[in-house]
């Protein structure tokens, strides 16, 4: 099988791998690089559990071929809590009980992070819209929406 080289920045560190052509980014991250924070819930683009941030945009790693990410800057949830300090979103997800089984959580946090990066003080509707591609079967969404709003408030208080 043809191996192709691919290089990208993952959570701030350079990665260079030889992968099988046609490998999805989800497979490359999980099976090659060992970052299992993106989850494969459907491999169809419908659940959002595999969400990652590529060059500042929310993407589904299950539908993205790894080769197309050459040179990209990629973030995943495992890279959020540098030096053991939780990111405000992670803190808020804990505090509002926004995670039950936890399978959707890394994807939810990615979707929420992109939102807050672009819109630091979102309305509830904006939060709902931003999370609309992510499915949670456990929480009923309300605690997750609250977590994102809580994190936004915490951010703006820190900034003030």
């Amino acid at each position, binding site marked *: 099988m043809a191996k192709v080289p691919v290089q990208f920045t993952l959570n701030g560190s350079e990665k260079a791998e030889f992968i099988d052509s046609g490998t999805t980014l989800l497979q490359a991250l999980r099976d090659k690089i060992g970052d299992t924070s993106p989850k494969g819930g459907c*491999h169809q683009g419908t659940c959002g559990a595999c969400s990652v941030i590529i060059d500042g945009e929310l993407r589904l790693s299950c*539908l993205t071929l790894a080769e197309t990410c050459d040179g990209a800057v990629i973030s995943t949830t495992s890279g959020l809590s540098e030096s053991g300090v939780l990111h405000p979103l992670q803190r808020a997800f804990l505090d509002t009980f926004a995670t039950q089984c936890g399978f959707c959580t890394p994807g939810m946090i990615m979707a929420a992070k992109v939102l807050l990066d672009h819109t630091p003080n979102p309305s509830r509707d904006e939060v709902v819209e931003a999370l609309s591609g992510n499915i949670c079967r456990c929480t009923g969404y309300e605690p997750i929406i609250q977590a994102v709003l809580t994190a936004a408030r915490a951010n703006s208080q820190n900034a003030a």
Partner: protein
Amino acid sequence: MALALQTFATVKDANAALKAQGTRYLGGGTLVVRAANEGDVSVSGLIRSTEPSLSTIAVAGGKARVGASVTMAAIAGHPELGTLAKAARAVGGPAIRNMATVGGNLFAPAPYGDFAVALLALDATVGTDGGETPIETFLANRDGSRAVVTSVSFTLPKADSFRFLKVSRVKPKGVSVLSIAGALELSSDGTVTSARIALGCMADRPMRARAAEKALIGRKLTADGIAPALAAAGDGTSPITDPIASAWYRAEVLPVHLGRLLLA
């Protein structure tokens, strides 16, 4: 055979590569990679081109040319394509919109293809290296189409002459029960002088509601005025049945939603 991707700098080279058996063009991959993940083994080679013109949006003289690789998110955020933002935002959730391309939407089978419905109502043309094709002809022949689509072009509608409606059960993001786009021109007294109405999910691909269009000409957009158009809305349709809705349901609700779109 494993799935492999080949990337070409030019559309010309991509077109040449697409002549090989088992190959398919890769747009945003939201349908084609999904199919491979689900076990569709009919595609073994994905081809893409990074030619910059595929990713550009050009607006001049009241006309727009949108490269085939332009994403729904890019359209929704483009200052001069505001009239189409609603249709672009109707596609998937935020991550899908960052990936889904215009080119891919032209090939998306119902219940997908919401943006193509809008393009059909705009009477767009579809560009390939071979030239421009009216979108209706393109859609009719798309199953046999092998060439890379490079762009779609259309005359920008005036804000109040273009309407779009997507009906879905889950909000804000859901798969279409149906979608409707209308490009209407009215005379100063409010009489319809020209109408193009396109429907999604009422066949396996976007289609024009010709009978309804005809029934609107010379009428006003009032409940009485549009009644004949609503009565004719289902002419020639063969709605799809899928987990979202049955053909029967889609046919039943089409006039209701067309009515809402026209009276809005």
